[in-house]
């Protein structure tokens, strides 16, 4: 197969951008986002796409951890929440500039990820799932019970809108560009990491942790690093969510949101940056498209989830490519 080299990626001897296909994909992505931003006037659609962007960030971070490092986290919504609450409390209660709050939010999430990851990432498989799940639950209970700071179950009101100099993000369009700009940045970042020495080591863990260790990769430290990185992306997503909705409450960061994140990654296709985008889009759009089913919506939604996994266990990215391949082969 002549194609192999391109498909497996990262093959050329030039480091900067892995290959032409990547550049093309990035270009199409940027154009699509720009066109959406310019052409779509309806705030409603812009808002939906903004949510897709935020969810894509979440999925991207978790995908790095799950798809590449092979570590499942069932408590990732905690970092999403930490990002959101940090910026809410700092900018809402203490009047700190949101941008400074963003730095604190990311730093806070990374720090928590470090402390939690140190013991937790020594677990594996379902035990790791359980450990992260417990962590997520504990963080959510703290959001709920520490009501003097977080506003408790009723939620946190009074998060300011983002501003950069004279540019206000009050306008849905500006916010859309902000979020998708961040998403694009995150995609590039993930790409860079994956094509680097660190990323190779990361992928080697996924292929065989034992061998990876034996060739000299400090697997535990690497997992910890990527855990911290995905926590940081989660915190950024939390920041964007908090300032967009300007209201947060603990249930937006609960266990089910963690499961949703995992689902986005798996449905989109693990170990694929574009898979994260696809998974996030599907899980954001699907409920919306199903509202015609009224009370049968849950049934249909569950069914779709099952069917996708049954017939495309590699996720949508791979599955759709396969279908496309079959279709192309047909005379």
């Amino acid at each position, binding site marked *: 197969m002549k194609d192999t080299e391109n498909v497996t990626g990262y093959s050329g001897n030039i480091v900067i951008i892995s290959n032409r296909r990547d550049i093309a994909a990035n270009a199409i992505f940027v154009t699509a986002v720009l066109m959406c931003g310019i052409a779509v006037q309806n705030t409603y659609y812009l808002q939906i796409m903004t949510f897709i962007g935020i969810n894509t960030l979440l999925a991207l971070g978790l995908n790095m951890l*799950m798809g590449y490092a092979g570590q*499942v986290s069932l408590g990732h919504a905690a970092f999403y929440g930490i990002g959101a609450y940090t910026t809410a409390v700092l900018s809402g209660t203490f009047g700190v500039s949101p941008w400074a709050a963003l730095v604190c939010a990311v730093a806070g999430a990374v720090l928590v990820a470090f402390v939690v990851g140190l*013991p*937790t990432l*020594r*677990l*594996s*498989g*379902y*035990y*790791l*799932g*359980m*450990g992260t*799940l*417990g*962590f997520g*639950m*504990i963080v959510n*209970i*703290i959001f*709920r*019970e520490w009501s003097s700071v977080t506003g408790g179950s009723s939620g946190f009101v009074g998060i300011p809108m983002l501003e950069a100099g004279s540019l206000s993000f009050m306008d849905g369009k500006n916010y859309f560009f902000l979020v998708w700009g961040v998403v694009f940045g995150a995609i590039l970042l993930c790409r860079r990491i994956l094509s680097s020495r660190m990323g190779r080591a990361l992928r080697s863990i996924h292929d065989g942790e034992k061998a990876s260790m034996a060739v000299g990769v400090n697997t535990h430290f690497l997992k910890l690093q990527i855990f911290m990185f995905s926590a940081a992306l989660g915190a950024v997503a939390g920041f964007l969510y908090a300032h967009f909705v300007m209201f947060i409450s603990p249930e937006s960061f609960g*266990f*089910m949101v963690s*499961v949703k994140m*995992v*689902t986005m990654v*798996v*449905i989109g296709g*693990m170990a694929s940056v574009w898979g994260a985008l696809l998974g996030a889009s599907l899980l954001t759009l699907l409920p919306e498209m199903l509202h015609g089913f009224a*009370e*049968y*919506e*849950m*049934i*249909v*939604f*569950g*069914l*779709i*989830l*099952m069917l996708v*996994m*049954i017939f495309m*266990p590699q996720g949508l990215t791979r599955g759709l490519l396969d279908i496309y391949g079959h279709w192309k082969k047909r005379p």
Partner: protein
Amino acid sequence: MQEILQYIFSGLTTGAIYAVIALGLSMLYSSTELINFSHGEFVMLGAMGIVTLWVHMALPLAVAFFLTVACVACTGLLFERLAIRTAGNAGHIELVIITVGASIFLRGVGMVIWGKDPFSVPPFLGHDSIEIAGAALLPQSVFIVIAALVLAGGIHFFLKRTLTGKAMIACAVNKKAAWLSGIPSSTMAVTAFVISTGTGAAAGVFIAPITMSSYDMGTMLGLKGFCAAMIGGLGSLWGAFAGGLLLGLLESLGAGLLSSGFKDAIAFVLLLLILYIRPGGIFAARDAKRF
């Protein structure tokens, strides 16, 4: 002192329920290496089944019980056949996501059939609590603990003493070797599913009288059962049982002695500590490396 006793009573009651749920999960894991995230929904189906058959249709309790368990086990069988089997060689995490999808699906079905309102089921054995050293104990609680023990004992007997059970363990230990020695691993998987979901339904029946049953009751119970199974060590039957009781006790004592707002957090912190100290659970049986 009598408060402590009361906490222990209520902890054991809830714990026994968690134990039965964990039992089903652990049992399924030990023969298929799969954690069924829709297990809680089967518990819900069990509770709703007893509501329909016993409370509404007024069938005799024993009949209603067996009918419920049988129906839910059939659902489990269908689930295995139609979803898990069809998925074939999907990886573990993909299978887990299928069970997540199934849990949403089943919850949706529950909502359509039984509506959004909760139901209440009268206790099987009288309303009045017995007083022991100043602490009140419901006959229902005693019933639950005994039933849980009987169920666990039954599964233990099945696995250790019957041919099918032994074959199942063989499958769990080494699928290929079991296949080579003529054990049909697919039959074993479906048997495990049937027993597991049946156990879940039984847990639902037991819990219905002490709490309220609604279509969305399962998720939390399934989650707690999952935790209990992990604490005990996946694949270990009595480990799951002990894990369930421990979780129930921790929650109850945490709520009583420390803070009820943080009771879940207290339980989870302790569970995490257990995991850190004994990464394979208290009764680590086999390692649960795969996900």
